[in-house]
């Protein structure tokens, strides 16, 4: 894997979420992006019954055989898929989770030359909270060596100047990038979105809907009927 940066896309209102996602998809397709499936990152938060400590359990479709357990201190345990069975066993005696607090970020995945771009709508429970763009530059493993290149691609997409990477990455510019760094960035955004107010009236988009409007020629049998 290469270096990944995850950015929040500014959205002005509830309607803007869907249209902003569609606009981004269109821009990426204009750049020569080839739609290459979908992605999903999810996060379930458990609380230790006796100590009250939180544990975030994350999955990333880019690493389907791994489960990431992130603690409040930032420590991240990478485990294999059996970790879910273990959490099922320890829930609810040792760890509890609240219904409706699961965070999911899902959407289309594009390949643009050496980059992989993902547009993900973040939902908490059933309410849509925000839009994230993930950009991966595959040929490089050190952020400092490819940040300028990624910035050049991301600035027009986000419509914002990016003076430096997100805080987590800015502290690790010269380190070898690992999948845990991606998870940490998602967690930072998920935490920020959890604290924010839900976008009133915004509904989670129907699966597969994002990006389907990007290609005006794309029609489903239903829409033709």
């Amino acid at each position, binding site marked *: 894997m290469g270096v990944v940066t995850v950015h929040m896309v500014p959205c002005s209102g509830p309607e803007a979420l869907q249209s902003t996602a569609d606009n981004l998809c269109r821009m990426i397709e204009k750049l020569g992006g080839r739609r290459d499936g979908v992605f999903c990152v999810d996060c379930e938060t458990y609380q230790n019954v006796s100590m009250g400590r939180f544990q975030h359990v994350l999955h990333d479709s880019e690493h389907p055989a791994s489960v990431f357990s992130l603690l409040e201190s930032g420590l991240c345990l990478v485990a294999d898929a059996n970790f879910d069975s273990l959490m099922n066993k320890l829930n609810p005696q040792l760890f509890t989770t609240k219904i409706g607090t699961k965070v999911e970020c*899902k959407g289309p995945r594009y390949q643009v030359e050496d980059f992989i771009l993902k547009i993900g709508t973040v939902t908490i429970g059933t309410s849509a909270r925000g839009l994230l763009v993930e950009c991966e530059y595959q040929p490089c493993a050190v952020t400092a060596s490819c940040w300028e290149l990624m910035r050049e691609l991301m600035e027009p997409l986000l419509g914002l100047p990016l003076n430096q990477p997100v805080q987590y990455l800015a502290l690790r510019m010269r380190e070898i990038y690992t999948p845990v760094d991606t998870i940490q960035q998602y967690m930072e955004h998920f935490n920020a979105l959890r604290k924010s107010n839900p976008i009133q009236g915004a509904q989670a988009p129907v699966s597969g809907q994002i990006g389907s409007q990007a290609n005006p020629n794309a029609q489903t049998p239903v829409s033709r009927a």
Partner: protein
Amino acid sequence: MQPLGPAVPSALNGIAIAGLRLGEMRGKFEQQSSSVRIRQTLGGYRIMQAEAPIVEQPLTRKNAANLQEYLLQGSILDSSADVLLNRLRGLCDNSDSPVELFHDIEQVYTIKDQANQATFSLRARNALDNPQLPWQLRYVGQPEVGDKSRFTICRSVIEVGTSSNLVTWLNELGFRLDYEFVAKGHIFQKGRMKILVQKIHRVCQSGNPETLEPVSQSFLIELSVLAPPSQESLGEEMKAFADQLRPLVELEKVDHARLHVS
């Protein structure tokens, strides 16, 4: 030899698997749902474009099958261990390859649920001779020994391969080290059965696995299979194999509750 302390039976309870060698990392790379576009042109019209919904299969595996460990245990004196090893080498698979060795440390961490006064324990295991192998986190359930129709101990086991920061992770979650031991020995495989011939060592200085002291002058033998529940035929298969090791070693289902020294 020191008298067996209370930790010993608990240790016996926990050494069923030196699973690092058998590569029990069961994380299979699932094929993720990918966007499938079927485009057909018929009479100049694009008639169908079907897209798979976003990640059809949830990433969290809520209904992952719980595996049961079927287990038989026995012991043999050090002086006779070589005879047993030779017999196992002949009986087990890959008899022409060198016997696989292991040298693992296992640490048992516990946490108390203050509301119910219940204690949960998780086991962290690492290969001392090959530390870059994944650590192993294990949950071992209460063994079912009461069923007289069943020939083996049966208990729920979940094994998870993890990164090397497992011990820090357990500590930060509030788990505390209860006891630790080092298991050193040989591992054999016969079909789906795993046979361990191992020497259990007490760690004299906590945190220093070099300072070891054998718990007894015997090797512990374990015959185990990880399988879905209700596999009654498995007991017969294991019994047949255990019979072939007689009279060198008597493999039995051991009631660990009775071993605890009061």
